[in-house]
């Protein structure tokens, strides 16, 4: 038995059929081909699958796809607008804040949510805000600096 779900993903209305046991992560990746969110642990520990669900960053591996009914979802694919990278994406690139890149989509979604809530976070606030996202390559230094740079960019614009 599959359930019919209607939801909004990156501003567009989307319908899909899913099994009740399927996670939002599985449906985004396997049914909707939005493979930007990644599976690192499938139990909410690594944050690589982070998406926005009704304005709140969530581990999409811990959300059932049926819970997306009527919700607004944003994924990493929705961060760049009209052919232009978001300042956070630009700062990640200019600041070399990624190495293998598997955790990057999760960090970008979490960091965007953080800056929308707190446009001028301190270093400690950034570190606390990103603590649910694991990165094994960078040691986080350049990620924190990229978020700081993006925060400065948006305050200047």
């Amino acid at each position, binding site marked *: 038995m599959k359930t019919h779900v209607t939801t909004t993903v990156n501003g567009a209305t989307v319908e899909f059929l899913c*099994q009740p*046991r399927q996670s939002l992560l599985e449906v985004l*990746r*396997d049914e909707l*081909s*939005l*493979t*930007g*969110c*990644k*599976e*690192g*642990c*499938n*139990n909410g*520990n*690594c944050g*690589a699958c982070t998406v926005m669900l009704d304005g709140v960053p969530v581990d999409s591996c811990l959300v059932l796809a049926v819970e997306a009914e009527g919700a607004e979802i944003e*994924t*990493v*694919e929705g*961060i*760049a607008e009209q052919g232009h*990278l978001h300042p956070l*994406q630009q700062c*990640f*690139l*200019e*600041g*070399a804040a*990624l*190495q*293998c*890149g*598997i*955790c*990057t*989509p999760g960090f*970008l979604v979490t960091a965007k949510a953080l800056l929308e809530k707190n446009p001028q976070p301190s*270093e400690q606030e*950034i*570190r*606390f805000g*990103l*603590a*649910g*996202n*694991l*990165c*094994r*390559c*960078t*040691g*986080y*230094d*350049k*990620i*924190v*600096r990229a978020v700081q740079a993006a925060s400065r960019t948006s305050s200047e614009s």
Partner: protein
Amino acid sequence: MSTEVAPDNTSDTESPATYKVIGTRPVRHDGADKVTGKAVYTDDLHVPNMVFGAFVRSPHAHARIVSIDTSEAEKMPGVLATCTSADLPDPWDKVDNLGEGCVNYAHLSGNVLARKKALYKGHAVAAVAATDSYLAQEAARRIKVEYEPLPATMCVQDAMKDDAPLLHDELITHTLDDTPARPSNIASHIQFEKGNIDEGFAAADVVIEREFKTATVHQGYIEPHVSVALWNEDGRLKIWTATQGSFVVRQQMAELLKMPVSQITIVPCEIGGGFGGKISVYEQPVAAVLSRKCGRPVKIMMQRDEVFEATGPTPASFMRVKLGATKDGKLTAGKAWLAFDAGAFPGGVIGPGAMCVFSCYDLPHATVDGFDVVLNKPKTQAYRAPGSTHVAFATECVIDELAERLKIDPIEFRLNNAAKEGTRRVDGPVYPRVGLVECLQAIQESDHWKTPLTGPNRGRGVACGFWFNCGLKSSVTANVNADGTVTLVEGSTDIGGTRTSIAMQLAETLGITAEDVIPQVVDTDSVGFTDVTGGSRTTFATGLAAHEAALDIQKQMVEQAAQIWECSPDEVTVADGVYQGNGKSLSFKALAVEADKVGIPIVGRGVVDPQCSTNAFAVNLVDVEVDPETGKVTILRFTVCQDAGQAIHPSYVEGQMQGGSAQGIGWALNEEYFYGDDGHMRNASFLDYRIPTCYDLPMIDTIIVEVPNPDHPYGVRGVGEVPIVPPPPAIANAIYRATGVRFFELPMSPPTVWHAIKGQTTGE
């Protein structure tokens, strides 16, 4: 904060070069793909008609496999194939070097799917393919395996005892001594000797000997192992996979499946971290066999607990290190006894561990004994400077204690004894020009060192680290386009920005911009043989190949210029990417446009196999604060200094230094496999196997020292691995100064530190 330092004492041949591209920080070529979610990792693939595989794994740490019954699973609708070790060809003893260690294919085959015995909890025993992943997992549960459990041995010291349960009945120790008559769990005993240690210790005024233990730790890449295999009806096999080395996967597949390499294509997708753990094959041969049996592409992706329990962690160790020094601070002798757990099959990382134990110092007299010990844990694998972190913990803690006993500043003591050009390592090689002294001096000159640390429960520590870095084979081709850009085709999988650091070397040689090079990592049919992305070799060796390809292009461009300008090629000169001859002058790009109209296509080729080590050294300076109530250690300030030879893209060099340091900090303070008495790992998740988060770390300051490598046209040394080496001892030495307690065991987690502080105050 980042700093770049050129050595003061550069000789005439090492005058600092001025570069146009090298040393700049362009945006990486694959950057836009990776910040928008478009980059394709293996699990992002949905190959048409694809089905899904799942493993059956041993619930026992050690057990004889009595029988495997797949019949019930095979009857389930949607189940397409099952597979056990009986589906793999009989393996034979053949040893190959995979770049960061050797593999015996008989052992590898037995690790991929257990044969007569399961040798660790999680050891793959069977597998199944089905039309969806849930069904595959359900079918795996219906495969009935009958086991006869056997006693397990879980720690190195126990496994070495005469009465320990044997993993392999036929394993006879490989040794320089007399070959033992009886089998044991000791796979090999290696020995190095230099000078005469009795003489050396007799000359010492102070001798210190300590015992050290380190826990099993995992590389902890965020992307689980994942592959898609398609075994076609014509016998050709194609595998999309997450690997550090597409050609070494091809080589392993050919050996395990007994088929020619030409029948196999490996497509390396973007890879989500490796650190040495994605060189050996695990799921690839199984996905291939399942595909052959069901005639459809099969994807297998491991769950996180499978990654922890059944892929290569790096070993636990037990070590004794003894060092002697004169009262004026000269080391006289060293003796090391090292036992590393290899996991369930021989061939751990004891070799490099034994070679690295005294590699930072000029020791006139030394002996090293190393033991490769099998036990009932997953087969260990390389992890960033494999073996070197273990031994640096031992040696650098004893060095620190010696310096303290002799009342000599810890950096001065290290400078007094530092390895330099001409120093012979205990295992034989003599160093060419290396940069350890410059790194120590740069730390002495740093703001961090010059700023005193104050406050209670705080301490500062120093430590050094070494890693060889290797050369090995790399191939590239480079095609000049009609618009004057160059497409660079390479076989080195890009884990941390090497597309760009390789492209920058091609650009520098040709006199064009980094953006005018379009690098592509391609499959094994589309480029010449290239060894693994490992051994810190990629920017060095594949960069060297790119430089060769650029010179090849330049030669062809000169010929075309001569043709266009109607002069002899000898009359054409090239400087900074400008070609001149017969009174005419054109930039590379302009000449490429002209050449495209009149000449044959220009294709450059670079193939290299440098045999040298490029010898990387790093030094850490770390300030910690220890909470006496909980034993929690907080890193207040961390500086890593490293000799990069020449930093091609400084941001990505800093990134390697920072990332390696963070892994070293995790190893020092948190990370360990907890095993129950049953040999089961108790913490096989990222929640309980705790790698550092953003909130656990400070900014990591970097100082890049550049002592050019004499074996590379731009002076490049590898940078990837050595930064993981010094953090554990640097932190141990800092904790000592904060608490007055020396630690001899990793990790120095809160309970361990708390108990030690408590023991000190209560006199226990």
